[in-house]
C-alpha cells in the first residue's frame, strides 16, 4: 500500500526523522498512531524531551540575580535560547525577541501595550476574514477599550485574501494591520511581503501571526520588514507554554510594559518605578525557563534538517494527500488557495465532522474536527465545522493512505 516518498539525494529522510519522535511508536485503539494534527500542536523530538529532562534534573534554578553557579547556568541557557530564536527568524537585535506563553499572549501584548498607546477613538485596525480567534479577540477587546474600529478584509471562495479589497480598507484611519501568515484552517499562505509593503507606504505598522508559518517555512523578519511577528513554541516541535513576540526595537522601546512584576523593573520605590531594558521590560515574573531552553533545542533540530528539505517533503505530502482524499465520494476540500501549505481541511457530504473524527480515530488516525478557532471562516464557507488533517515533517504518504482508508470507512458507515 505504501508508496515510498521521493528519493532524490536532497530529500528528507523521513524514516530517520520518525526515529527521533518517540510518540510515533505508540498505538491508538490498537492501531499505529497516524498523527495528522500538527497544526494544533507538533510532536516533540527526543532532543527536546532530553533537554527538558536535563534542565530539570541537572540545571534548574531561577534566572537573573543569582550569584551561584546553578543560577548562572540557567540564565546562560535562557539567554542562549533567545539567541537561537533571534538567528532562527533573523532578527537584527537580540532585544527584539520577547518570550511569552504563546502566540496568543504575544498578540495580546501588542494589543494592550502598543494598541492602547497608539490607537484611539475612530481609529481602525485591519485584519482579514481568515484570522484565528487569537488574532481577532485581542483587537475586539482593544476596540471596546478605545472605541477603535475593527475592519475585516474579505477572502474569496478558495480562501485567498482579496488584495484589492484589502488595499481599499487600508485608509487614513488605519493604525495597525494584523494578518495571519499561514491560515490554520485553510492552509492559505498570505502574500505578507506585499501586505507589509502596502501598509508601510501609508505608514501603518504590521503584525504577522506566524503560529502556523514558523514551522513550515523560513521566516526572515528583516526581509519581511514586519513590525511584529508572533509565534509559538509548541507548534515548532518545542514545549507548550513558551511563545515568542518579535518586535521592531524602536517600537518595543517606545511601548509601555504589558504586565508589572519582578524582573521587568530597574528600580522600585513606592513613589516611582522605572522599567528594565528590552526585552526584560516585557517579561514580568519568572518565565518558562525550561520551555525557552527546550524551544532553543527545537530550533536547533529544525535548523539541522533545514527548511528546504522540510518544505519540499511537506509540499509533496500536501499534493499527494489532496489528490488522495479527493477520491473519497462526497468530499469537499475547504481551502484551495494556489499558495498553501500543510492543511487539508474538508467536509464529507451527509456526515458531521465530529463523526468523521471519531471514526477515523478508531483506525488510529488523529485529525482535528470543529471550527479550529476560526468561526468566521466556517460562516464564510457555510459549514458548521470541518475535519482537518495537517502534515508536518514526520508524516508519510503511507499515513495519508491510512487517512483515506479510514475516510472510506466513514463513507461506508454513512452512505450518501
Amino acid at each position: 500500500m505504501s508508496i515510498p516518498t521521493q528519493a532524490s539525494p536532497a530529500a528528507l529522510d523521513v524514516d530517520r526523522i520518525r526515529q527521533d519522535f518517540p510518540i510515533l511508536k505508540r498505538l491508538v485503539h490498537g492501531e499505529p498512531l497516524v498523527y495528522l494534527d500538527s497544526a494544533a500542536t507538533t510532536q516533540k523530538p527526543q532532543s527536546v524531551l532530553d533537554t527538558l529532562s536535563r534542565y530539570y534534573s541537572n540545571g534548574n534554578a531561577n534566572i537573573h540575580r543569582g550569584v551561584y553557579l546553578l543560577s548562572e547556568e540557567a540564565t546562560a541557557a535562557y539567554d542562549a535560547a533567545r539567541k537561537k530564536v533571534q538567528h532562527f527568524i533573523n532578527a537584527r537585535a537580540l532585544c527584539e525577541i520577547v518570550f511569552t506563553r504563546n502566540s496568543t499572549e504575544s498578540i495580546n501584548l501588542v494589543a494592550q501595550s502598543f494598541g492602547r498607546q497608539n490607537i484611539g477613538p475612530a481609529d481602525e485596525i485591519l485584519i482579514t476574514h481568515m484570522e484565528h480567534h487569537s488574532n481577532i479577540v485581542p483587537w475586539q477587546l482593544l476596540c471596546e477599550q478605545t472605541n477603535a474600529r475593527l475592519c475585516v478584509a474579505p477572502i474569496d471562495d478558495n480562501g485567498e485574501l482579496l488584495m484589492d479589497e484589502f488595499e481599499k480598507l487600508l485608509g487614513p484611519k488605519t493604525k495597525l494591520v494584523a494578518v495571519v501568515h499561514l491560515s490554520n484552517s485553510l492552509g492559505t499562505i498570505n502574500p505578507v511581503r506585499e501586505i507589509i509593503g502596502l501598509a508601510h507606504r501609508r505608514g501603518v505598522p504590521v503584525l504577522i501571526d506566524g503560529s502556523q508559518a514558523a514551522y513550515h517555512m523560513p521566516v526572515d523578519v528583516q526581509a519581511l520588514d514586519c513590525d511584529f511577528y508572533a509565534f509559538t513554541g509548541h507548534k515548532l516541535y518545542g514545549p507548550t507554554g513558551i511563545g515568542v513576540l518579535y518586535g521592531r526595537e524602536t517600537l518595543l522601546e517606545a511601548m509601555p510594559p504589558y504586565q508589572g512584576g519582578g524582573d521587568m523593573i530597574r528600580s522600585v520605590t513606592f513613589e516611582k518605578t522605572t522599567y528594565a531594558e528590552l526585552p526584560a521590560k516585557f517579561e514580568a515574573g519568572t518565565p518558562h525557563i525550561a520551555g525557552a531552553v527546550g524551544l532553543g533545542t527545537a530550533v536547533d533540530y529544525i535548523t539541522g534538517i533545514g527548511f528546504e528539505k522540510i518544505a519540499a517533503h511537506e509540499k509533496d505530502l500536501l499534493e499527494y494527500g489532496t489528490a488522495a482524499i479527493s477520491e473519497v465520494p462526497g468530499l469537499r476540500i475547504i481551502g484551495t488557495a494556489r499558495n498553501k501549505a500543510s492543511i487539508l481541511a474538508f467536509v464529507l457530504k451527509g456526515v458531521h465532522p465530529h463523526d468523521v473524527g471519531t471514526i477515523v480515530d478508531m483506525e488510529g488516525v488523529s485529525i482535528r474536527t470543529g471550527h479550529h478557532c476560526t468561526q468566521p471562516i466556517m460562516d464564510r464557507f457555510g459549514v458548521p465545522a470541518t475535519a482537518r488533517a495537517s502534515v508536518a515533517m514526520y508524516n508519510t504518504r503511507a499515513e495519508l493512505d491510512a487517512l483515506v482508508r479510514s475516510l472510506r470507512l466513514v463513507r461506508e458507515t454513512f452512505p450518501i
Partner: protein
Amino acid sequence: MSDLRELYQEVILDHNKHPRNFREIDGADRHADGHNPLCGDRLAVYVNLDGDVIADVSFLGSGCAISKASASLMTDAVCGKTLAEAQQLFREFHRMVTDNDASVDNGLLGKLAVLAGVRNYPIRVKCASLAWHTLRAACDDTHQFVTTESRSS
C-alpha cells in the same frame, strides 16, 4: 470495526438520517435552546403540556449523528410521559452514558439503550446529552439558554 458498529448502530444512523419530530411546534407551551460551544452543535426543543404530561415534543437543530439521533430518540421516548417520568428517564440515560459500570436498564430505557456505546467516548457524552439538558430547561420553564459548558453541568 466492532467498536464502530457499537457506537454507530443502525438505529442511530437511521434517526440521524430521518430524525423523528424534527419540526417546530407553533406557539409551544415550553421552549429552550441548547448549544455545545466546543463543537458548535445547536438545537431547540419545543414542548406542549397537558397538565404535567408531555403531550407533544419536537426539536430542530444541527449537529453530529450522535446528538441528532439522541434528540430524535428522546422525543419519541418522552412523548406521553409525565414531567417526573421524563426526569427519571434523563437520570437513567445520563447514568448509562457516563457510568462505565452502570448496568443498562433496557426495560426503562427502551430504544435509548442504543446510545450506551457513547460511554466509551467521553468527549461525545455531551453530544448525546445536549438534547436532554435542553428538554429539562424547557420543562423547568427557566427559558435558559443551555450550554454544555455552563459551570453547573
